[in-house]
């Protein structure tokens, strides 16, 4: 997992990309987590991204969280190279 934070103004809608559609429960858990982090109401939009292989990423303004399987695979690849 990877995240980036800055002081710039953040959008209120977070884009969550995942290899399969999130369940309602998953969407709510992610939304609650984001609202806790940023202390405000956040809307969540879910998009399909097959390249992630598994897991998901979150983009909120310039804040970014990578919890994808492709990142795990990339880390393993870096460790082996």
């Amino acid at each position, binding site marked *: *997992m990877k995240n980036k934070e800055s002081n710039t103004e953040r959008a209120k809608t977070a884009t969550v990309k*995942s290899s*399969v559609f999130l369940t309602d429960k*998953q969407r709510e858990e992610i939304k609650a*987590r984001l609202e806790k982090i940023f202390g405000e109401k956040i809307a969540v939009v879910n998009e399909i991204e097959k390249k992630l*292989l*598994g*897991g*998901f990423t979150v983009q909120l303004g310039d804040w970014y969280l990578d919890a994808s399987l492709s990142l795990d695979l990339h880390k393993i*690849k870096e460790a082996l190279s």
Partner: protein
Amino acid sequence: MENLGIQPISLLLQSINFLLLLLILKKFLYKPILKVLADRKKKIEEGLSYSDKMKSEFEKSEKKRDEILVRARSDGKTIIEEAKRAAKKREEELLEKAQREAQEIIAKGKREIEAMKEDLAKDLRREAVMIAEKIVEKVIKEALTENTQKALIDRKIKEIAKSNI
């Protein structure tokens, strides 16, 4: 004297004749002969003296020549020994230099071989990792069902919660 048959006058005349003859011989024969003999003696003495002198000079020359020969032999021997020493030293230097260069070439060759081996190993590892990555990606795509994908997302959400992001 007359009893002895000696005539005084005749004796006197004979004596005068003898003295005259003696004077004449002395003046015209003995003196030139003596002078010739003296001159000859002088020449012989001069010749002998010259001969001695020459002999002495020759001996000196011989002695000097011998000294020069001895010195030349000694100098020559010294020069040859020095040349031998210098040649031996030069030979040792060249040998040492050649050995050093050979060792450097061998070491350089070893380093290059090691570098090539490392590069080859890195290339092989990189290629192996790339191939493994492709295989893993393919396997994951084929193996993960929708349910397992959702389970994976659940797990990631839990991990995020645990990591206090």
